[in-house]
């Protein structure tokens, strides 16, 4: 675990600040809620327009006249943006950037299996991503106390775990791109096409009934906060799908990196 702890320590600033910034949205949302609550009916009408429905995607399903609905729409819209950015740019470059900077040549001359090196570095990514649900949960708890509103924190925890698992799965796909291409720009482009493609699929799938089937090809359709809130439970079938694909992608990345050449 030496590699894991070394990179965990070395990258703490980049690992802690983004989740903290996202979590700070929670008190910001809480601070505008008392004023906004009075106008939500009109605002809700506006969001019913087809244009906003497309833009918001699954987030349009929340009832924003309630604190829970408004909070979920705001925070999970932000989280979706973070997922897109983080999973495209970070795991794809975890290894490929090391090839580019030629740091890998040195480190692989030490007695550490290649697969283990990738796994430990990816674990650092997963650890810091786990701070998103943790920070959001803590600040949400603080906010609901100060606002004196009710909210089911168990369902919120499920939704946040769902987000983390989505980051795991998409991150593993992105890592797979990185180990296939071993060149940071190509790897990021491939991860971008794969992840943004899924994001677009779920948006297009939401346009009409006839295109609805497209959603099932997108990770963004699974472990959705809206589904969890409506069903009042964690959808275990979706959890299994996301988890299995995440593990398979990760194993794929590890096997490919273990077996492939490292050209200079």
């Amino acid at each position, binding site marked *: 675990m*030496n*590699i894991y702890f*070394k990179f965990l320590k*070395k990258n703490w600033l980049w690992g802690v600040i983004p989740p903290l910034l996202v979590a700070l949205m929670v008190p910001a949302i809480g601070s505008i809620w008392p004023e906004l609550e009075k106008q939500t009916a009109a605002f809700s009408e506006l969001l019913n327009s087809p244009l906003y429905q497309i833009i918001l995607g699954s987030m349009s399903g929340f009832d924003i006249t309630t604190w829970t609905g408004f909070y979920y729409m705001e925070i999970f819209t932000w989280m979706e943006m973070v997922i897109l950015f983080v999973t495209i740019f970070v795991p794809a470059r975890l290894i490929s950037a090391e090839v580019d*900077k*030629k*740091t890998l*040549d*040195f*480190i*692989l*001359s*030490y*007695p*550490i*299996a290649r697969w283990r090196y990738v796994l430990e570095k990816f674990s650092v990514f997963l650890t810091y991503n786990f701070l998103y649900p943790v920070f959001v949960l803590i600040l949400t708890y603080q906010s609901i106390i100060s606002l004196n509103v009710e909210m089911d924190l168990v369902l919120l925890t499920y939704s946040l775990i769902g987000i983390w698992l989505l980051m795991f799965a998409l991150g593993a796909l992105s890592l797979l791109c990185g180990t296939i291409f071993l060149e940071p720009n190509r790897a990021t482009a491939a991860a971008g096409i794969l992840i943004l493609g899924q994001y677009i699929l779920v948006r297009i799938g939401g346009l009409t009934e006839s295109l609805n089937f497209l959603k099932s090809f997108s990770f963004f359709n699974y472990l959705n906060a809206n589904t969890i809130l409506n069903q009042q439970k964690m959808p275990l079938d979706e959890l299994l799908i996301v988890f299995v694909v995440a593990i398979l992608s990760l194993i794929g990345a590890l096997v490919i990196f273990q077996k492939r*050449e*490292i*050209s*200079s």
Partner: protein
Amino acid sequence: MNKTNQIVLQVSNLTKIYGYEYKFGGKIIGRRIAGASDVTFDVKKGEIFGFLGPNGAGKTTTMRSIMDYLRIQVGTISVLGLDHHRNALSIRKRLGYLPDDFGLYDNFSGEELLNYTDSLRHANKEFLQKLKSIFRVDLKQKIKSLSTGNRQQVGLLLALASKPELLILDEPTSGLDPLMASNFHKILKNLKKEGITIFLSSHDLTEVQAVCDRVAIIKDGKIILVESVHELRTKSIQNVRINFSNSATRKENEIKKLKSVISVEKSNDGTLNLKIKGDSNELISWLSRHEIHRLTIEDASLEDIFLQYYR
């Protein structure tokens, strides 16, 4: 087996082809290039073995294949008696490697890097301390703020820190100033005395001549010579300088006819500069019949020998 004859590194028929070729509609698509072709040599315990060749000759391909970074198509590589691919991790516990044109983590300091790598392969504290006093690079500075030469020194510290049984060094003195390079040569010679085996590639032929016991010369991916530096210099061309007591003009034509003489050049002061190869008795016998003012015979430098193979 005699300890000195133990083979630490054995490369047999190593062939590495880059790229792919496909036949499509009668046309060949793609390109295959041989990075190394049928490369065979071995390095004995306690030996400093030099690997010579110009850029693109196949030195780095061979070294990266030994390190199991590249997958070879044909051949076998045995490192410390173990298969280089199947036993890669066991080998790396006993080996130090300095890659050519390597990168180090910019946001680490030299000290942090040494601590980090110590957790992966334990450093020999006493030896490391000695190395630190020789290299004198500021290990508290971040790698990004170090000069190329200082980064090279950190790289050498990392490769040598564990005092491994086998050192594989790709262009180890590249970027080092002459004083530091000379210090490094002393370190290599001391390590050799302790039975540590060193396999190094270099462009610097003076360096190879100064430290290596044997050399292999690689050209277009193929080994064209494996020889001890001493043998190579003895068997190869010699440089002869002759100052005759009187005019050398007529003698120049006579001397050119001798079998052992490869080339003759006359300098402005009348000195004849000869390159000879093989039996020198014929020349000595001829010289004995003439009045000589000054005569110098010296072995060719490794550079001369190297150029002989590459021209």
